């Protein structure tokens, strides 16, 4: 027998993504979403309490003994089913987290609810890449590669030019490409390897060392610089280490100030919900959007094995570029509308 609570929960099952702010542990995000979903689901109007018929004898008639007993039937609510006695209908909601983000980083965090957790484990296993934006600063080196750590070394950075940076990035990309081919376990001289490379399906299966599939510099204003990365099997600490190593390669030092995930598989920044929108109704909207987009994706791409990789292989960089550009235009319009001071 489906109650309004259960019907609302069915509508909440699926995948969605949130924007995790920096400095917050991913578990707190998951717990906060679970609490808000519980308040939403348990807040649906309750059904009236079930009634039970009880036969009550009139007190006067029973004492006489001689006259006929008049029994009245009274419909009494069963208090044992009241939510104050038996508790709320939903006490836990299974909310699972996809690829985790450590407390220092921010960005797109994929969560699944109820039946969506099965899709989440499949999503976790597909070799989908993730987009990150790394902001670094030359001149210092710390023990945990971030600007909040203990400073280990300071150096000059006046000699660094964009050209040298690009050269270092190209070298890194080449090394990663070699690692990619090595981990994909395919003979490089076969036709199969060529076809897979054309489609962008070359990649390690399962766990492997972190691999950067794409790396480029977006902004260079010494000492600050911004990189964009597409990677597989990574951790955020590894990405901060990459920034540190770039500093070392340039005969200087660098720390990472921001690690921001802009895309995780098919979930982009545009779909991500900020913490003002972590209510049940907003989450329901995001999940329904995901379901409808899934249907759209399935219909044209019926032939290819993994449509996400194909589309990503073609438009890897343009997608991220577009999202960056759209963001920057949106914010820059804000700047333009302000009075100059």
């Amino acid at each position, binding site marked *: 027998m489906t109650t309004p609570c259960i019907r609302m929960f069915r509508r909440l099952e699926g995948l969605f993504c949130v924007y995790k702010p920096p400095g917050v542990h991913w578990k707190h995000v998951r717990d906060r979403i679970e609490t808000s979903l519980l308040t939403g689901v348990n807040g649906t109007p309750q059904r009236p309490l079930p009634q039970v018929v*009880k036969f*009550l004898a009139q007190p006067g008639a*029973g004492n006489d003994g001689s006259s*006929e007993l008049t029994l009245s039937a009274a419909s009494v609510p069963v208090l044992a089913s009241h939510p104050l*006695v038996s*508790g709320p209908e939903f006490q836990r909601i299974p909310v699972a987290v996809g690829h985790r983000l450590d407390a220092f980083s921010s960005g797109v965090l994929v969560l699944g609810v109820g039946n969506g957790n099965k899709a989440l484990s499949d999503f976790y296993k597909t070799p989908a890449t993730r987009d990150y934006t790394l902001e670094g600063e030359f001149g210092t080196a710390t023990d945990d590669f971030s600007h909040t750590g203990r400073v280990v070394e300071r150096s000059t950075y006046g000699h660094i030019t964009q050209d040298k940076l690009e050269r270092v990035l190209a070298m890194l990309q080449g090394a990663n490409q070699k690692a990619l081919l090595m981990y994909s376990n395919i003979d490089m001289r076969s036709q199969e390897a060529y076809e897979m490379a054309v489609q962008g399906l070359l990649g390690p299966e399962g766990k492997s060392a972190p691999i950067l599939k794409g790396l480029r510099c977006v902004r260079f204003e010494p000492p600050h610089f911004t990189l964009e990365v597409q990677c597989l099997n990574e951790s955020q600490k590894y990405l901060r280490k990459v920034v540190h190593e770039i500093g070392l390669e340039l005969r200087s030092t660098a720390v990472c100030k921001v690690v921001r995930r802009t895309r995780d598989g098919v979930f982009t920044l545009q779909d991500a919900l900020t913490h003002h929108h972590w209510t049940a109704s907003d989450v329901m909207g995001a999940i329904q959007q995901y379901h409808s987009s899934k249907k759209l994706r399935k219909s044209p791409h019926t032939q290819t094995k993994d449509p996400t990789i194909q589309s990503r292989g073609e438009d890897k960089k343009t997608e991220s570029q577009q999202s960056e550009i759209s*963001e920057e235009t949106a914010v820059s319009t804000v700047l333009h509308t302000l009075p100059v001071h």
Partner: protein
Amino acid sequence: MSIVSLMLLAAMASSCIQLCCRRCSGLLRSKITVQYSTQAQHCTAVLTASSRVSNGSSFLAGICAASHTRQRWRQQMCFYSEHKAKPLTAEANRYKDAEELSGSDVVAYKNRLQNATDSLPVTDSQVTLDVDAAKSLSALEEISDEEAVSISVPSALPPATTSLRDYVDKSETLSKLVQLGVNLWKLEQRPNVGSMLLKLDFQTDVAPRLLFLKDIGVEDSRLGYILSTNPFILSEDLENLRTRVNYLRSMKFSSETVASMVSRAPYLLNFSVKRLDNRLAFYQQQLGLSTWKTRDVVARLPRLLCGSLEPVKENLKVCQIELGFKENEIQHIVVTVPKVLTANKKKLTQIFDYLHNTMKLPHHLIVKFPQVLNAKYLRIKERHLFLQYLGKAQYDPTQPSYVSLDRLVTLPDDTFCTDVASATLQDFHLFLKTL
């Protein structure tokens, strides 16, 4: 009505009860007092059964159940204690009273149970008597309506259970508590609270205390919250409660203030006068405030009087040493925002660190707007970074386009965006995604 009696008969599982009605009237006359005394020893084992039966019979008799159950209970207790002393004739006299009819059924049922379980007092003659009696009865025998109604159905109350759900329909105390709005589900998870609530009697324990709370001025809608948070107020002595309220009134707290303090800090009246006095003296002495101001602080945050004083002492030390506020500054902060005394030290230092070292706010400005110390760290950070991005992060009152700290922190998001930042809410959310 005969249809009803037949229905009742059909509903009852135990025809043995009917049997015992017949038989035990015979049994009682033939029994000797010795057997009653030996059976009375087993009274504790059968009390649960008797309570079940009494509740069932009371249900059938009438819904103004409270007085009936208690009377019956007391009658049964009397029954057991008098079994040893009184002769049978006195008991036989009781049968004439129709109310006792179900009582006798109760006793009869108990005796039936004991006959079934005991091996010692039952004699062979009794056993043969039972068997003979059983043959002559049948379940299809028609009985009068009064007899049918007075047959008590043993209700299936479990003797021990983990949830109050099983007892709430049968217990008057619990049903009245649910109607008041007490969250029994939360309370039964606390150790020993469930059994304590069951043992309470509504008329003698719960009602006087609820009336007392109403007298001091607590609103009816708050009673559910108070009992859900502090069920032990129902086991507190009424005299003690009165003494404590009188003490608070003697410390010049007005009646409305006392009522609001009790509704917001339900554990307040469970503490002794000595402890309350100790707390008030501590706050007055430590903070160095006048009596009026101390009273004001305590009235606004009554849980200061309930909890331990150690965290408060630590918070004061943190404010003085780590954050570097002076005595008079701490006094001003506490009088404006008393919650600082019970705040989490780590969060307090995190917020202060951001305000002082990142936003470069001097001490005197933070003291002027102590609400910032009460705000969420993430909120302050996001709004400050947004204003900084727009170039509007100007917190110095002497300079133009000044943003006051209380507006930064207390305004809701849309008002903040339109008034302070001159941007739309969507821009703010877009900016948040770039952090």
